[in-house]
């Protein structure tokens, strides 16, 4: 295989590449924050006039809550009653699976194609 000689890249195009990469990184990190995707489904199951007993705390546990600065059950209510909802959204799970599997399939196939060129040139097709 003939040795591949890459084209020269102008300084301006190098800067454009850098700007593209930075913009993509910012978008990937900032967009989920902005769109509110970075979070989990959970809700506070409210108890009116909470007591430590209603919140399911034993006397020893209450002692630790107090040491941590929670003077009464009302102060700890939102922490104790903040419950997760693990109901599975099957459509979202399917989409996520397809995206991840598709990504890795493309990654390995395209990498292999590039790798064969590298090996061919490195070992001169021998």
């Amino acid at each position, binding site marked *: 295989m003939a040795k*591949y000689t*890459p*084209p020269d*890249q102008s300084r301006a195009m*190098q*800067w454009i590449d*850098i700007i*593209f*990469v930075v913009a*993509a990184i*910012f*978008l*990937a*990190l*900032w*967009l*989920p*924050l902005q769109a509110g*995707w*970075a*979070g*989990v489904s959970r809700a506070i199951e409210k108890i009116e006039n909470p007591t430590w007993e209603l919140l*399911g705390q*034993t006397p*020893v546990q209450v002692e*630790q*809550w107090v*040491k*941590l600065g929670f003077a009464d059950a009302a102060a*700890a209510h939102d*922490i*104790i009653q*903040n419950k*997760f909802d*693990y109901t*599975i*959204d099957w459509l*979202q*799970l399917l*989409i*996520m699976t397809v*995206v*991840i599997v598709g*990504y890795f399939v*493309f*990654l*390995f196939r*395209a*990498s*292999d*194609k*590039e*790798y*064969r060129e*590298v*090996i*061919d*040139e*490195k*070992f001169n097709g021998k």
Partner: protein
Amino acid sequence: MVQAAAASSAPVQKVSLLRVLGPAHVWALGVGIVLVGEYTGWNFAADKGGTLAALIICWVIGLLYTSVAMIDSEVTSTVAAAGGQYAQAKHIVGPLMAFNVALYLVFAYTMLEVSNAILIADTIKAYAGDGFGDWHYRGAIATVIVVLATLNYRGVLMTLNVNFVITAIAYLAIIVLFFSVQPWSQGAVLKLGEMVTPENALPYGWIGVIAGFHWGIWYYLGIEGTTQAAEEVRSPARSLPYGTMAGMITLLIGASLTWYICASLMPWQYLGFTYYPLLDAGKLTGSKTLETMMFIATILAAVASANGCINDAARAWFSLGRDRYLPTWFSAVHPKYRTPYRSILFLLPIALAFAFIANLGQAITFSILSGVLHYTFMSVNIIMFRNKWPLGTIRRGYTHPFHPLPAVVLFVLCVVTYFAIFLGYGAQLTAMVVFYIIMSVWFHFYRYRYVKRGDQFTMPWPKPRGY
């Protein structure tokens, strides 16, 4: 201007990274990055599934990372080049995978650095009171990131010497706390049986245990960063496996002690809520000395982690420039300090920007997502490595036992962790993978034209089997 050896066709003075590090530095780099995970983050697994779930996850995820350490030790002791897993991917899977792996590394470490800076500012704020305003908070974040970037700029030996000292202090603080609470005498200070009861051990059942895998990663995330020092250690074949495995043992012990102390002192709802479980544990002992010690140790652990992350992210970015995957401008080595200074400076404003707009939980999640993608690659990578160069065909610094069991365990646990992330951050994970797809398409169909083909393969190995 000085470029690294393979960076440019123009006549240049060749300056390489300095080989000055030993096994202790490798340990300091790996444990330094990870130890902060004992001080914050792991406990959110308790939030997801209860205190017992956090313990189950501690050991199961410990198995995942033991597999990572074993696999990494074999491949890196053989492919000893800056960029770590990036260099492995380049030689074993192909250029596009290497490009992606470098992005995983940069994302994981930069967001981990961001998390550490936020943690330091949050910890100081929690103790400073109302006088610590928004500008003080931002100032603390900026100071941490800029000072540590400057340290990294000035040289790797000093950077990792500092890491060794502060990591050792932060680790010793856990040991001191453990013995101070009389672990041999339940009921004196610790009250495990009262805090973890049959009723509250697994409040969400086994789905909560699986969901907790997401945060369980934080117990050990970053230990694989030891490989980034491959080009700067004096004896990669000896130092990298030794430093990485010693680091993993250190962390498994530290994580188990941390769980035992915290689970015995606070109700699971609080444990899953707090940002400072070990600091709170110090507070709950009633000893002002222990509380102050854990306050200082929390700060030191976060500083060590941020310091190691800057080191690792910069080397991954530097490697991309050196191989022309990105403009070669990034591949410059400082003529005096012998560090990848442009990469360090380039990543500095990105870290600062996200430290100001993200909160701790979000920054940690970004880091975890890239980490899991990375570990998925590693499980396939070792299989390909053994197939292309079977044992005996090339010299390996270390050969890990029980192959392919660690690879299979790693892959299965990665799949479980994807599902765990889906249970909380599915849309975010999908969005990040879409980003990697866009970057892959950009690289494969555009950027790769600027890459020299055969020059990427730098190891003195025979042709891989099957090619």
